[in-house]
Structures are given as structure tokens and as C-alpha cells.
């Protein structure tokens, strides 16, 4: 009996926290390595020590010893890489939250039809209002499209007889996505001249990244992370079933109503700059769940880092492969992932 007591004297909490810290440090290191590699490669190879020197000189305010390389790194590669980090992080966090909330392994950031709405908005702006508000017409139109889909989904759910249920939300999301995709196909079919541009947007890419876009999306990302994280305990309880969560004191109805809106708005903002990049938000949370377990308090930050790493790496690959849209690469890597999911017997 005495011996048994001793075993349980160890702190499970401390052990858990230690594991969390380890995972986050490894992922952070991996992210830094990915970012540096990604900055190094391109048409001109810039060695990592030069990159670090350029960044140091910028931060310290010293004039650049190599202005040509500094120009490439600071004006071209860095904003694009940061964009990949931010968008990848947002998509993965959104996926983790949606999968937890709907208790559905196939849920992802675009569950409320945000991607189709944004694509339609972008397509319409490309065909109808070329350069009316300068370069940013398309992102604004895409954001409006994404919001329109959220609005539509919630109004369909309101019409349903059974009252608010997350299953209804899923179905409404799918139907709105189909609706917008159908209209999008028609727009592409009608707009023969712009159809290539629309397609490139739909596939998703980071090639249009610049500092202004990074500065716009960075606060969105931060707010999104904090908000998602603040719901992590609620999400844990909801994994045990809605009624159990409720008897643990969680207002499940409210979480189920509010959280998808918040997350979809953030996703909408991300997507409006990058196009609907697929599979990052679906895959990264699954992979992280295998490593860190189902607790959302670690799953959300770990997914953010993993999404950032994955999208940055995929985008470097896209740049090397003659600028094919990064969405194609992420989607292609999704196929083996789905086979892996099918082989797995357990639900999340």
C-alpha cells in the first residue's frame, strides 16, 4: 500500500505540462528552420548565414552590407514566408476547433462554406470590377463572399424546425458551399477571358503576398488564436458529449453558435488574401492529435505551429516548381493522408 502511494505521488499535471513544453519547443525550432530554409531557396540561393545577418542588420538599424540580397529577402521572400506562416497557422487552428466542435474528423476550416463564398466573391471582383479599388479589390470581395456564406448558413439553420443543432449547421454549410460553387462554375464559364485568373485564385497561392497584407492578417491571426484558445476547455468537455459538457457547466448551445462564426470570420480573412488553400486545416490537427492527444489546450497551439510549418514548406516547393499554386501541392499531399485516415479505425 505504501509503495502504491509513492507511485501516485508523482504529479500527472507536471508531467503533462512538461510534455506540452517539449512539443511546443520542438515545433518552434522546426518552424524557425523551415522559415530560414524557405528564405534561402529560390531562383537565387542565399546562404542562411547571410539571411541571419540581413535580419540582424534590419533589426539593429545598421545599413545593409549586401543591399541586393537584402532587397530580395526583405521585400520579396520574407513577406511571402510570413504570409505562409500566418495563413497555415490560422487554417490549422480553425480545423482543430471545427473538428472538436462537430466531433467529426472530416470537419475543417471551410465547414460553413467560407471557401466557396470567398472564391465566388473573388471571381466576381475579377470579372466585374477590375482594379476599381486598386489591387485589393479581390481580397475585399473575397472576404465579403466568405461572410455572405456564414450569414446564409446561419439563416438556413434558423429556418430549420428542430432549432439550433450542430448537425443542421454542417448540412447547411455543405448546401451553401454547393450553391456558391455552382454559381462560381457559371461565372468561370461566362468569363472566358478572366477564367484563368479565377482558377489560379481558387487553387490558392501566396505569390501576391506583400507587407501590407502581412500587417493586416497578423493581428487577425493573433486574435483568432487567443479566442480559439479561450474555448479550449469547453471543446474538451464537448468531446465527451453535449449533455456531459452541459452538466459540467458549459453553455454548449452558446459555444456551438458563437465559435463557428468567430472561426469562419478569421478563416475568411485569411482566405481572402491567399485563396482557399486546401487540406492544411484538415490534416494538421489530425497529425497533432496523434502526437499530443485530444486536449485542445495543447492541440490548438501545436496545430498552429504545424500548419505554419507545413504551408511554408509547401510554398517553398511551389516556388521551386515553377510557381504552381501552393493549393495544388497541399491538396495532392492530402490524398495519401486520406488513405491513412481510412486505415485508422478510431474516430478523433
Amino acid at each position, binding site marked *: 500500500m505504501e509503495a*502504491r502511494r509513492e507511485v*501516485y505521488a508523482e*504529479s*500527472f*499535471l507536471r508531467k503533462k*505540462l512538461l510534455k506540452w513544453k517539449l512539443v511546443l519547443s520542438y515545433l518552434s525550432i522546426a518552424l524557425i528552420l523551415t522559415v530560414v530554409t524557405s528564405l534561402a531557396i529560390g531562383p537565387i540561393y542565399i546562404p542562411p548565414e547571410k539571411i541571419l545577418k540581413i535580419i540582424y542588420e534590419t533589426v539593429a538599424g545598421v545599413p545593409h552590407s549586401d543591399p541586393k540580397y537584402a532587397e530580395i529577402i526583405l521585400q520579396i521572400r520574407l513577406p511571402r514566408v510570413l504570409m505562409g506562416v500566418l495563413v497555415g497557422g490560422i487554417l490549422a487552428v480553425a480545423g482543430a476547433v471545427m473538428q472538436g466542435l462537430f466531433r467529426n474528423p472530416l470537419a475543417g476550416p471551410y465547414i460553413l462554406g467560407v471557401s466557396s463564398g470567398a472564391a465566388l466573391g473573388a471571381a466576381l471582383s475579377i470579372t466585374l470590377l477590375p482594379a476599381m479599388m486598386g489591387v485589393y479589390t479581390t481580397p475585399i470581395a473575397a472576404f465579403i463572399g466568405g461572410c455572405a456564406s456564414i450569414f446564409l448558413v446561419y439563416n438556413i439553420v434558423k429556418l430549420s424546425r428542430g432549432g439550433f443543432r450542430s448537425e443542421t449547421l454542417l448540412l447547411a454549410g455543405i448546401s451553401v458551399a454547393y450553391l456558391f460553387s455552382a454559381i462560381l462554375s457559371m461565372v468561370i464559364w461566362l468569363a472566358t477571358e478572366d477564367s484563368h485568373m479565377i482558377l489560379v485564385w481558387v487553387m490558392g497561392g501566396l505569390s501576391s503576398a506583400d507587407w501590407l497584407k502581412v500587417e493586416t492578417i497578423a493581428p487577425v491571426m493573433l486574435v483568432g488564436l487567443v479566442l480559439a484558445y*479561450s474555448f479550449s*476547455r469547453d471543446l*474538451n*468537455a464537448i*468531446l*465527451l*458529449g453535449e*449533455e*456531459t459538457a*452541459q*452538466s*459540467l*457547466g*458549459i*453553455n454548449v448551445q452558446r459555444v456551438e453558435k458563437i465559435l463557428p462564426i468567430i472561426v469562419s470570420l478569421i478563416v475568411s480573412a485569411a482566405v481572402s488574401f491567399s485563396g482557399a488553400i486546401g487540406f492544411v486545416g484538415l490534416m494538421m490537427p489530425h497529425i497533432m*492529435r496523434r502526437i499530443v*492527444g*485530444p*486536449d485542445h*489546450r495543447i492541440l490548438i497551439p501545436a496545430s498552429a505551429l504545424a500548419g505554419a510549418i507545413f504551408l511554408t514548406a509547401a510554398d517553398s516547393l511551389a516556388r521551386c516548381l515553377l510557381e504552381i499554386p501552393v493549393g495544388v501541392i497541399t491538396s495532392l499531399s492530402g490524398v495519401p493522408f486520406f488513405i491513412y485516415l481510412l486505415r485508422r479505425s*478510431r*474516430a*478523433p
Partner: protein
Amino acid sequence: MSLRARRLEFYYAARKILDNISFTAEVGELIGLVGPNGSGKTTLLKILDGLLKPKVGSVYLNGRKLQDMRLDEIARMMAMVPQDSIANSEFTVFEIVMMGRTPHLKRFSLEGAEDEKKVKKWMELTETIHLAERRMTEISGGERQRVIIARALAQEPKVLLLDEPTANLDICYQLQIMNLIKDLTRRLNLIAICAIHDLNLAARYCDKLILLSEGKIVAIGKPIEVITAENLRKVFKIDVKIAYDPETDSINIIPIKPLKDETSSSMEKHFIQRPRIKN
């Protein structure tokens, strides 16, 4: 602490599920809800826990109307052991029990050493501490039920609600779980309300029984007053013999036959058409 139900009425769509339910629960008392399938036991438990709102009447917890309380307030005083706890969870046993601390924690704060101490205490009491790092998928049904009870206790409730805690368990686990519930009720001075199918277990372990039929209370009182041949004939439509067993100091129900034997009568009708096979 007191729990009082006053004239509860509940409907699913137009169907009346509960009708005029009133009772008071005392501290240290294990109350059993018995009755046939669909008599409203689970619905009543959910109303008592604030998960469903009654159409008429209210539940009073310590004199306060349940409808006026926030869910987390209720969760600090009342815990539920549901019937269908999700079993395929990847959480470890320790994490599951720790979730019982949820109503006591602020949104951004992590669980602390104090919470861990409490959780370990309840895990020792329910004999689940040796399972702490196992996943919920890796333990047996009886162990899982004890873990869920430990989680409920980690909420530090004054009222413990249990929905068929012995369903799907073998007879040894059934006795263990009922002993545990009875013990906890006494020692922690809880109000425990337990929906239970098995009349023998109910009669043996509960201090008071509420017999429900079609959403109404048919009888309420000590097991020996509620479990009578007459009541069971009325509610369950069965003929029973009730025997007192001095060793367990409780009554035993021996079912004899259903009042209206539909299968045998329809079988007779079926076979009467055919000539009997004679040898």
C-alpha cells in the same frame, strides 16, 4: 442543502412525458427512480440537472429556482453520471476525472496542484487511481463507470444524479457500484438520485423509491412500501411474488408471468389453425 421538485411537467413536442412530479430529497438519502421503459426516469434526471427546462413547475436547489441559475453555478452543486458516457475517448482516465474541475476553474487558468490533490483523492476513493494514465478506451465497463463517478465527485457536488449506473455491467460490478454509491451518499452527506432498472438492486440499496409510470408518480416511499405486488402489477403488468430475505435485509422480487401474455396467445392463435402433430 435541499432539492425540491414542484409540479414538474414536461413535453416532447405534444407528447406529455412528465406530469405533476413533486418530491423533496433529503441529505444523506439515496433515492431510486424506478419504472418501466419510457416512464420518464431519464427525462426527470435531466430536468433535475437543468439540462432540460420543465414546461410547468420548477426545481428548487437550496430554495433557488434552477431556471434562474447559470449552468456553471449548477455544476458546482450538482453532478451527473450519464447513461451513455462517450467511451471512445482518447483522453486518459486522469484527464477525464480532471474535467470534473471544469466548473471551478476560470476560463484561462490551468488546473493547479490543489485540483490534482482533490482529483487524486476521489480517484483513490473510487479505486481508479491505478488506471490514471490509461486511456478510456483501454479499460473495462465497470472501471469506466467508476471513472465517471470520480469525475462527478471531482465537481464536489452536493447532489449526485445517476442514470442507470449499473446498466451493461455484470453482477459483481453492479454490486460494487451500488455499494460505492451508497457509501458515498452516507459519508459525503450527498443527495443522490439514481434511475435504476433492476428492482431488486433498487429495493436493496435505496433509502427511498419513486415509482414512475407514464410520467406520473405512482408511489413514493420506503422500498418495502413502494415495491408491492399490487404496484408492480399495475405498473409493469406482471404477476410477482415478493419475498423478504433476512440475510440482505431486503426484499426480493420473483417475477411469475406477464399479466397479458401476448406472445403465447398469438402463438396459440397461430398454431390452432394447424392440426397438431400426433405421434
